[in-house]
């Protein structure tokens, strides 16, 4: 039994404790220590990636009793659904630390400790195989973020962080209750106390129970993801957080919300999911349009990216609730794609803002002339974000939209218009910031990417390009697990059963209504 996962979770914790030994005024040492720890963790984590066997289900499993009398165990493992987020956590933490290098000037130890602990919390949440353990990590990962936004954030940081935490807790506490209920239900049905996740799948509930529990779980994940209309914490938190934190928040933490749907909500309540999925897809579709349209009229670049993130996360939700392998595989793939693209956009906006002290789009203009590297990086990431084929955003988006189309034609059709909106707001942003003549004297001699900044963007860009060019690197690890997921939740059969209506007429987009609720 390998202890790799435990080491990956514990190492940052140890590193952040070790950081306390460094005197507070040795800033470079602190930074280097944090970066080193995260890089070491990443290096170890590569073993996870390369050791992962796509067909083998849960791997790197560890199980130890925690509170056996309550059926609580320390049980962790990764499968294809969680592997990607786990890797994201490992890869993006050093990037975020590097991005914080000059941005964070005070209380360094606390900041970097939070950053490392955040990684541990998120990693723990995705690899947990025990519902209780999951909940613990789920809450734990909230706290560093709370501090990072609140202590190192922007002007309205206190408001933003309180809103973020309280809003998130509203959802997760309700989920907590639902977890307890499920736990009892399992005991009532099977006579044993356990939080083992697979054992809690698809228990039989009365309709009322089922819907209440489904609602509680859904709310928790929907707030975290966020799904429209539970997003109102997002613009504030994303905008006010220090950008590396925004980066982690949007790149990884939001994904854990979406992951929750896959790991918990759907397998635990397949019946309810079957009925609710079209409505959730509608929410996703609406959120997609909503986020995109609002992004269109934002004047603050970071806020614009925040809304674009909402829009993209909505597609993920839609893809997941398409409940077919295209949608789900696409969503899981897009976890990564969105993390890199939107994350990198946040970082780039940060770099812009650092140079000018403002994120107001109108304050820029014509930057391309002065800062070609920055421009190239921005446009590259923009293209990834709008889903240009050949970059990884496309693969995910293609699969998700395809899945959505396959599950509910009208929703898929409307959602596909998203490719237009995203191009609208992103390209408009690019042209407003980078193109035209430099009209403001402050923008003369705009500093181009520094080497450190280039090293922040470079790994992201490289991964974006590679996984877009050869997505099988990732897909081959994800796909068997999605397959297994569909088999186990019983949605695989549903996809096949769709073959029944042979009448071509019902397939024309003109008359798809009869088809929409076919599953």
């Amino acid at each position, binding site marked *: 039994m390998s202890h790799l996962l435990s080491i990956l979770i514990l190492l940052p914790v140890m590193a952040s404790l070790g950081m306390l030994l460094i005197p507070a005024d040795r800033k470079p040492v602190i930074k280097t220590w944090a970066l080193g720890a995260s890089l070491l963790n990443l290096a170890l984590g590569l073993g996870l990636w390369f050791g992962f066997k796509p067909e083998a289900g849960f791997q790197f499993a560890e199980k130890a009793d*925690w509170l056996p009398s309550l059926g609580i165990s320390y049980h962790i493992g990764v499968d294809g659904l969680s592997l990607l987020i786990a890797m994201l956590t490992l890869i993006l933490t050093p990037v975020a630390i590097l991005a914080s290098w000059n941005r964070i000037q005070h209380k360094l130890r606390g900041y970097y400790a939070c950053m490392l602990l955040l990684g541990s919390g998120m990693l723990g949440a995705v690899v947990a195989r025990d519902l209780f353990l999951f909940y613990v990590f789920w809450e734990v990962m909230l706290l560093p973020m*709370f501090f990072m936004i609140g202590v190192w954030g922007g002007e309205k940081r206190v408001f933003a962080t309180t809103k973020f935490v309280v809003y998130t807790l509203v959802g997760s506490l309700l989920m907590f209750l639902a977890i307890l209920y499920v736990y009892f239900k399992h005991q009532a049905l099977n006579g044993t106390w356990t939080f083992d996740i697979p054992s809690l799948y698809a228990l039989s509930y009365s309709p009322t129970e089922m819907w209440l529990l489904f609602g509680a779980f859904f709310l928790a994940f929907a707030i975290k993801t966020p799904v429209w209309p539970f997003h109102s914490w997002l613009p504030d938190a994303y905008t006010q957080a220090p950008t590396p934190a925004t980066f982690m928040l949007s790149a990884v933490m939001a994904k854990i919300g979406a992951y929750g749907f896959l790991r918990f909500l759907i397998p635990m309540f397949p019946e309810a999911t079957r009925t609710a999925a079209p409505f959730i897809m509608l929410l996703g579709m609406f959120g997609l349009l909503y986020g995109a349209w609002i992004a269109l009229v934002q004047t603050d670049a970071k806020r614009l990216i925040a809304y674009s993130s909402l829009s993209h996360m909505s597609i993920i939700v839609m893809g997941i609730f398409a409940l077919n392998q295209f949608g789900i595989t696409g969503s899981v793939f897009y976890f990564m794609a969105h993390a890199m693209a939107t994350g990198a956009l946040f970082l780039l906006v940060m770099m812009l803002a650092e140079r000018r002290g403002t994120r107001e789009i109108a304050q820029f203009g014509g930057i391309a002339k002065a800062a070609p590297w920055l421009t190239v990086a921005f446009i590259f990431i923009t293209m990834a974000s709008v889903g240009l084929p050949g970059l990884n955003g496309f693969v995910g988006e293609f699969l998700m939209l395809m899945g959505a189309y396959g599950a509910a034609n009208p929703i898929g059709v409307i959602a596909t218009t998203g490719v237009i909106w995203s191009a609208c707001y992103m390209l408009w942003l690019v042209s407003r910031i980078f193109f035209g003549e430099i009209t403001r004297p402050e923008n003369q001699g705009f500093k181009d990417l520094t080497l450190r900044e280039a090293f922040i963007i470079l790994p992201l860009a490289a991964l974006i390009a590679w996984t877009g060019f050869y997505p099988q690197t990732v897909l081959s690890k994800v796909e068997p697990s999605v397959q297994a997921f569909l088999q186990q939740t019983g949605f695989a059969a549903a996809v096949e059963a769709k073959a029944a209506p042979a009448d071509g007429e019902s397939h024309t987009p003109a008359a798809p209504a009869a088809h929409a609720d076919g599953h």
Partner: protein
Amino acid sequence: MSFDLNQLVQILPLLMVVVFGLFLPLVAPVLPAEKKGYFMGWISFVALLLTAGVALAQLAGKPSGEPIFHGLFAMDTYALFFTLLFLACGAITAIVTTYYLPREQMGHEEFYALMFFSIAGMIVLAGGTSLISLFLGVEIMSMAVYALAGFRRWSLRSNESVLKYFFLGSFSSAILLFGVALIYGATGTTQLAGIADWLTAGGGALMPLFIMGMGLAIIGMGFKVAAAPFHTWTPDVYEGAPAPVTGFMATAVKAASFAFFLRVMQTGFMPAKAEWVQVLAALAVLTMFTGNILAFVQPNIKRMLAYSSIAHTGYMLMGLVALSPSAENAAGSAILYYLVAYSLTNLGIFACISFLSKQGEKLVNIEDYAGVAQKYPWIALAIAICMFSLIGLPPTAGFFGKYYLFTAVVQQGYAWLAIIGIINSILSVYYYLRVVVTMYMKEPTADWTGVSGLKLTRLAVTICVVAILWAGIGSFNLLAVFPGAEPLLSAARDSVSSLF
């Protein structure tokens, strides 16, 4: 009717506490005057630890728990569990008062004597098996704590605190006593076991009398645990009392009151559960909402914590609702665990408050805590962890306590109650976070130059925080050498099962 020496051995912790209370003040005059507070504090601390050692030894020896002194008292596991908790609360408080009393120029001898006596009263409360001995326990504890609350005699707030506490406390004692009288009249006994037997046998004609008595007793006990609408004294008393005393009241006194309440409900009134369960449920709901709603806008941290303690009373009352005649039921042990978690948390916070409030307790508004994180990072972190524990966030003891409690409540079929509990947890998030936010995210306004007791505070709060995390995370197998939450849980479970 034979006097059995063995009985005295059984109540050794109680005796020790009383003896220490009587004789420790006598040591005071021989101590160097300028260091008197310091020595008194540590002597008391050691005395408490000694007592705790004895109690632990007794616990390890698997006490029989048979009622002694003609059924008035039983030093069972339950009592020992609570004894240890009280002693721990006392010990932490003693660490804090070591510097606090000299700082506030308060008398040491009487303080520690009263603290020991109050602990004696609590032990009686935890081990009493008869309503009358329990009543006496309440009185001993209360009298001592009244005096402690009014210890800063020259402070009008402290005066007011003791005034309210005393008058309302006596008022409620009288109500409780009237209840005891009626129960006695109905059942012919004050022993809890006897009452339960009487109820099991069907009660008889005097049932109305009993029910009235039980109602009055619940009111009396509700007052002690600060259940709404009998909670009104809590904020005023907590605010006015010296901070370490408030900490002591919020933890040991509350734990003792719950020990009392729980024992009475579990071993005395259980057969009549159908009668009281709705009353307690209503009290629980009302208490939770009252505490959480009132705490929301409270600027004074002591007062805010008073409301928070009311809210937590509400949660624990849910646990009482979930009690059942079955020894398998987890509700009782959940309350015990919750009390431990809650006590540790509040002790930690009040240790910090005592320190941060400065001489004369000037800085007790939450706003005053702005920027504590910059000045005292460890203390700020500790308070933050305690606040998270109060919210019930993992991996703290508060989370585990809530988990265990809500589990029990759901298990007994009161899911609706648990939902209200969760809603209340949500309501509580904001005001606890406010403290953390203020400490970490606001610029300092207060001036802490010349404060004393940082090291002792750190010691006290470190003990609490380690314990909170220890009880929260529990033991992983890779840390098998380190006993975690599991032993604590099984201790709580054993304790409650000793009631059966």
